[in-house]
């Protein structure tokens, strides 16, 4: 359990986010956000409650909501599209999650652990999901449509007239240059720093991988220059 001062600091960090005043204007307490929220249908979660806790500066209950509730939000932003006061409860949840990560809250670590694999796949291939991951057994809800992916995937993908999509172990091919640019973006926007706070082991693996890719890219650039000199 955190001390009151810690909880106050967490609230201050949420309040201090540059997006905060844009996402929260006040609240008419109408409940439209909760009524339209898909997560509220299934979990003990209510966007109106989150908005009310923030608006009334209830630091203890805010801290409590960050243990579990805020992780139920699907970030679909239906609430933001419907709120008659033009608040964005989903946007507030995004800020709260970032603050939970910054404070290395256990709840954040628990929730994010299963996503380590997704993160790894994303960073190593630039894709979250690849065609060869779509196994018929894994998608019973697709019904008969699943047969469409049961054929010869390699052949089917070859039929797509876009070269970068003619792969099966990635959704599309990401060029080395794009990957390296993405790493820079993730570094500068604090994504990698968040990863380090949440899962140090995964961060180490990914950092090594990034270093390697950057070297590959440097080598490739040098090769290009040499080729040019040869041409001269």
């Amino acid at each position: 359990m955190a001390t009151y001062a810690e909880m106050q600091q967490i609230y201050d960090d949420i309040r201090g986010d540059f997006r905060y005043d844009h996402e929260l204007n006040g609240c008419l307490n109408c409940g439209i956000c909760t009524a339209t929220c898909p997560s509220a249908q299934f979990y003990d979660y209510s966007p109106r409650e989150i908005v009310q806790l923030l608006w009334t500066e209830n630091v203890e209950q805010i801290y409590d909501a960050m243990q579990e509730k805020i992780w139920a939000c699907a970030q679909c932003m239906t609430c933001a599209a419907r709120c008659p006061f033009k608040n964005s409860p989903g946007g507030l949840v995004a800020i709260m999650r970032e603050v939970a990560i910054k404070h290395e809250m256990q709840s954040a670590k628990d929730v994010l652990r299963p996503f380590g694999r997704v993160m790894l796949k994303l960073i190593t291939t630039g894709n979250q999901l690849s065609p060869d991951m779509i196994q018929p057994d894994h998608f019973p809800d697709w019904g008969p449509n699943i047969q469409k992916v049961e054929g010869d995937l390699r052949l089917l993908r070859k039929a797509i007239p876009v070269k970068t999509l003619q792969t099966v172990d990635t959704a599309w091919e990401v060029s080395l240059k794009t990957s390296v640019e993405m790493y820079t973006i993730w570094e500068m926007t604090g994504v990698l720093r968040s990863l380090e706070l949440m899962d140090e082991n995964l961060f180490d693996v990914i950092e090594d991988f990034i270093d390697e890719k950057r070297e590959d890219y440097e080598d490739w650039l040098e090769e290009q220059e040499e080729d040019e000199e040869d041409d001269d």
Partner: protein
Amino acid sequence: MGDTVLVVGAGPAGLSAAANVTAAGYKVVMVEKEEVLGGAPILSGYARLVPSGEWAKDAIGRMVSRVEEDANCTVHKNAKVTQLDGEAGNFTATLSNGETVKAGAVVLATGFTHFDSINKPEWGFGTYEDVLTTTQMEQMVSSGKIICPSDGRVPERVAILLCVGSRDRQIGREWCSKICCTVSANLAMEIKEISPGTDVFIYYMDIRTYGLYEDKFYWKSQEEFKTKFVKARIAEVTASGDGRLLVKGEDTLVKRPIVIPFDIVVHAIGMDPNEDNPEISRIFGVGLEKHGFIERAEHYTNTCGTTRRGIYSCGAAYAPETIDDSISQGAAAGARAVADLHALVRKAG
């Protein structure tokens, strides 16, 4: 002509202004774009009015005949002002029927436009036959029979959704329409009176039955007519397989989403600025405030003024307004127009 006031719009506000101008010994020329006088309560067929309980056609009907029988009041129906020249004390208006009117002052009593529920598609109006507006429900009450338009059955449950087209930034309506809470509490009583087997639920964010409307409407509707007030704004109206309507909202007490079946859903529609206001602003040279209503002159010392000298306004042309207040403001605008004309004439003489 320094002894004539041009009154545009013959709703409660304009009818009141006209009567007060002639009572002071001046003349009125009235220009109304529709073919009947009386404004929204007559044109939309309201039932019993708040707070008097009188039928609209009787109450407003009296105001109409007072003006129609007034020898000092000339009425142009089916007409609009298309051009206005001159200045305070000496205006010349050209009408769409080809006539020209000389007047010393102008009172704009051009009122409001009902919110069109089509602009809020998630609440089912235009999609489901049993989703109605308060004006349609008023007409049903006037007809003396409460039935579902889809198949004529008597509804077991009616939901009234408040603030439809008001207090909603998503659709640029940042005002409260002031009267719909009271009108809805009243409508619930009227429904129950005609159809005792029908239960009425009102979904609200806040109840604004201000002043003396608190016990007369909000309390009475609950105590004597068992109207259920539920604090929640509805998110969506859909249909169930058996032809009933499904209303989806949050039960704000237990903080859970709920879906409730109803037979009729009524939108308590708000008051938009008159859709003619951009045209009125151009023709009469008056400013509009940020929501699109007519802008007032100095708030405390020139309450009935507009941004142009010699042109006055009143009622729902300024902001969402009740009939009672529109009538008071109409009287004030008429009196102020006459007083300013009197001063002008004295100065000239």
